[in-house]
């Protein structure tokens, strides 16, 4: 296996998908946000955002808390410790991989 192939193998594919990477980046810079805020920031449709969030939640990267505030549904989102660590690792791996590429 070529060294560049090894680097690619280390990149977390779940995070690498552009929509999920956008979600991870937006949640990484805050403590927590709700669904509506994330939707505004990422400009994704509710269905698309919801589907990507489910995948991130299943991986244990995002904590989703559903509740009712003033009789309206409210979805609070937060990166878990595992999610934060995975994102940090993803950044390191992408950087390492790009740094190793020839000019």
């Amino acid at each position: 296996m070529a060294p560049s192939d090894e680097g690619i193998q280390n990149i977390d594919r779940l995070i690498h998908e552009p929509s999920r990477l956008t979600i991870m980046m937006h949640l990484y810079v805050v403590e927590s946000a709700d669904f509506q805020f994330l939707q505004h920031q990422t400009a994704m449709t509710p269905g698309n955002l919801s589907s990507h969030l489910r995948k991130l939640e299943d991986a244990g990267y995002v904590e989703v808390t559903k509740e009712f505030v003033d009789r309206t549904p409210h979805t609070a989102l937060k990166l878990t410790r595992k999610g934060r660590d995975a994102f940090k690792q993803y950044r390191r791996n992408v950087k390492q991989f790009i740094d190793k590429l020839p000019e």
Partner: protein
Amino acid sequence: MTKQNTLREIERKTYMSYHQDGLIDIVIGLYALAFGLGIVIDRLFDLSFASIMPAILIAIVLPIWIQAKRKITMPRIGYVNIGTKGSSKLFALLLGLMVAGFGVLFLFTMATAQNGRPVWIDTIFEYGMIVVGLGSAVIGSLFAYTMGLKRLHGYGLLTLALFVSGHFLSVPFEYLLLVIGSVIIASGAALLVQFTRRYPLQKGAPDNGAQ
């Protein structure tokens, strides 16, 4: 753009998006307006109302601002908790300004307590409006940089321009405060209208995070 810069940009946009409603401008404008009114009332009725005005305003305006954020901003763009990283920069700035304020006060007290007041004190009093204007521009820029709100630079520069003009045209300090406060409130109100039009309230259940 590197990933680090992208993250900083997202962080800045997140912070800015929460202050695009103009509410912070209205609060700043109310402070200037109320402080100016306090001085006018003091001059008219020989009171010392202006000195307690900041405390009164904190007690009144802060809860209104929090409620306005809950009732106007959050239902439209959602809720975000920036966390300690964003607020710690602002806290550090406020602390720094407080320390600087006490430092200046101490320096003034020490200098005026001595026999034969130093000339620089008289110079500062003579150009008091320009000094206040410069101070406002610097403080405005510091807040603009910390909060990522470029329009605060504008408010600082407006204050500087008005106070410099006021010094040369002999316009009383309190009237300038009333003008500055009104302009900032008007700007905040315009931003608020723009914000409510851009993000109208969604009827029914706005959160679509159901999975």
